[in-house]
């Protein structure tokens, strides 16, 4: 899966499932502060990522993943 495909899927679920405004989703957007993703959202994100990318997020691997861009990097690493 290439980077564009990953970003398209991530953007889609942020907009559709988490109802985040499209214009807020920029590479440097902070997941918590800018996109308003809270700890309960992360419980749902585990489910959504498993459904879209076929792997399960491990919380320990998410350390330091605090922006949209880093989140896509993390998924890219896992799927490829």
């Amino acid at each position, binding site marked *: 899966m290439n980077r564009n495909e990953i970003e398209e899927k991530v953007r889609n679920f942020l907009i559709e499932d*988490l*109802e985040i405004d499209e214009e807020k989703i920029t590479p440097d957007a902070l997941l918590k502060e800018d996109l*308003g993703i*809270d700890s*309960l*959202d992360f*419980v*749902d994100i*585990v*489910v959504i990522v*498993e459904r879209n990318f076929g792997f*399960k997020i491990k919380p320990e691997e998410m350390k330091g993943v605090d922006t949209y861009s880093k989140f896509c990097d993390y998924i890219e690493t896992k799927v490829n």
Partner: protein
Amino acid sequence: MRRVVITGMGIWSCIGTSIEEVKESLYNGKSGIGIEEERLRYGYQSGLTGIVPKPQLKGLIDRHLRRGMSEEAEYAYMAGRQAFEMAGVDEEYLLNNEVGCIFGNDSSAKPVIETAKLMEEKHDTELLGQSYIFQSMNSTINMNLSTIFHLKGVNFSVSAACASGSHSIGLGYMLIKQGLQDMVLCGGGQETNFYCMASFDALGAFSKNMAEPAKASRPFDRDRDGLVPSGGGAALVLEDYDHAVARGAHIIAEVLGYGFSSNGTQGISQPSDDGCVRAMRRAMDDAGVEPSEIDYINAHATSTRQGDMVEATAIDKLFHGTKALISSTKSMTGHECWMAGASEVVYSLIMMQHNFVAPNINLENCDEVSGKLNLARQTVDTEVNLVLSNSFGFGGTNSALVIRKFE
């Protein structure tokens, strides 16, 4: 003891999703019953159900507050919004005052079943997501509404089968009467998804008259063949009288009395005329009124032979020869189960406000007991000042409320 009044009401049901729409349906004897094909595919004996529109909450409530809402919490929220609006209670008031919340609810099957299905498939709780826990508990309405409306007062749910909604009003009334609360949002909610009534359908208690859905629910009629499940949400703002006057609220009615009882007989689904009589008597004693003063009885009658006949016997014992007109609005709405005790108070208040008694539709031939009752087969234009509302449930739980129009 303080006086308890009603200053707001709201409804989301199969006969309307606003007070005005419901008034038209009640006055015109309009049925809200239809067929859900999904139930038949799923394996129900009957596809009949109240057809309740789904609320559109996107845009009304932030996603973070919405994600834990079950179907019945959504219905109850819509009703609660209407009730607070009618009572003149806004967001600022709720932030600065202690308002309680007691709702009747006795199941939340869909999220429970979906959770079980996912667990069977994934065997991993990390793949369930965060919503199901808040949707699947019986207190789902309370936990969601209290959070969304920022409520600071009493906060718990009542599970008492088909009397849940009525007991919720009774408990709110008692808390205000005793001076423990000034304002409580009371009500009931009932899910309508195709999962929720399978085990009830198993009893063979549902009407199978799928050829004529609007004629399927026929309480007190000799030729009834069972009840029709239904649902939605109903809410009432109960308030201390002096508190309502002090803030200049419009008072709709006064809750005069609450009566409850348990049958104490064998048979978990067996009704008892003695249990019904004791609940009605206690409510009227609490209200300080005689049966001869009651203008209208909103009967529990669900359209099952045994239940209707037992209630008819109980009503005849107390009200034989009195002026009270009787009807079961379930003839139009179907059986709104956990919500019914609250929605039927809303229906009765609408009749009070507009001077009519709604008809017990589909009553063509009485049976040997219902023939003794003063049943309203058609809409009756008349003043309705004093109402008795009955609700009974599995396990022999009974509730009755006496409500008087406020002049």
